[in-house]
């Protein structure tokens, strides 16, 4: 038996509720939540989809740390499990938080390949060596689960802060040998809500379930952004 203590929110008030879940070896926190929903209290609300750590739906605070519920084993944590919604996001219901702003920030950094010469009707193979691929590959692994954003101290006080995930996405394209749109992204990254607000708490890299190293991406993006601006000033 494991004891699940869950932080709930019904739209008006917030409260703790405790459930007893029969835990077997190998059972994940997500399976525990499903057990509760299907057998004890079906009003419990949480997001989940792929249950293999690739869709990014089920990030939540488990025993104080943001993790993917689907890949966190209950017995690995002991028989007392605390589950809370992510910090730095507005809670909608129980463990479900509002991701609208998070995705809007991702969109704001132009996270797509910018190239004038690609034609929709006649696509051409662009060459890229495995070494060039490795330059940015780790940053493509972001599943937008929000774990990084939830622990970022800058995101805690600044609502508009782009945050680690969005800036890692920006850097992922800046470092892609096929991309030609760096300058556009530097412009966004250099805003008041951008790279300057990172002070390297590095907690984002610590909690990232996919080891994307967003903190590193932000540093690299900041360096590129700063030098691009300085260069343009000096030329002027």
């Amino acid at each position, binding site marked *: 038996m494991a004891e699940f203590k869950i932080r709930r929110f019904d739209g008006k008030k917030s409260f703790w509720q405790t459930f007893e879940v029969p835990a077997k070896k190998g059972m994940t926190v997500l399976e525990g939540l499903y057990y509760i929903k299907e057998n004890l209290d079906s009003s419990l609300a949480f997001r989940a989809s792929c249950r293999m750590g690739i869709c990014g739906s089920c990030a939540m605070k488990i025993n104080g740390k943001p993790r993917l519920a689907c890949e966190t084993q209950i017995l690995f944590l002991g028989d007392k499990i605390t589950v809370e919604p992510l910090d730095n996001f507005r809670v909608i219901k129980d463990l479900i938080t509002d991701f609208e702003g998070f995705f*809007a*920030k991702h969109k*704001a950094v132009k996270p797509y390949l910018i190239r004038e010469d690609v034609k929709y009707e006649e696509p051409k193979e662009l060459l890229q060596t495995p070494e060039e691929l490795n330059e940015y590959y780790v940053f493509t692994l972001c599943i937008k689960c929000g774990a990084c954003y939830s622990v970022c*101290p*800058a995101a805690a*006080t*600044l*609502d*508009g*802060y*782009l945050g680690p995930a969005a800036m890692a996405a920006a850097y992922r394209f800046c470092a892609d040998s096929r991309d030609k749109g760096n300058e556009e992204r*530097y*412009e*966004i990254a*250099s*805003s*008041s*809500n*951008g790279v*300057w*607000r990172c*002070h390297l708490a590095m907690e984002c890299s610590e909690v990232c379930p996919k080891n994307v190293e967003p903190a590193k991406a932000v540093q690299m993006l*900041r360096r590129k*952004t*700063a*030098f691009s*601006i*300085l260069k*343009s*000033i000096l030329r002027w």
Partner: protein
Amino acid sequence: MSSESAKSVLEPVAWLLQMITGLLMIVFVTLHFYVTHMVSHEALHYQEVIARLNMPEFKVMYTVLLLIVSFHAFNGLRAIALDTNAGVRNRNAINTLTMLMFLVAFFYGLYLLISL
């Protein structure tokens, strides 16, 4: 989102300077501390202080230290203030105010240095 005028010159310059002044401070502050506290507290006596301040190499060192410390300190304050919603809303005011504070601190110190 992030609509305000991008490519502000202050930010990258301030970022770089914060690091450079930080590095320099490690050297200068250690030196300053060494002189005043590590050898003997004799160095803190009024006559000693005045004498030191009248040596050109110390005068230059203190001026430089004063400059980098006050920049680092008030630029740091600026960075902290801009981490908040209220800060970013009043970005220009924060920038102006903290840089002004830096200048006030620096010139006040300079005035002390010169008048001694």
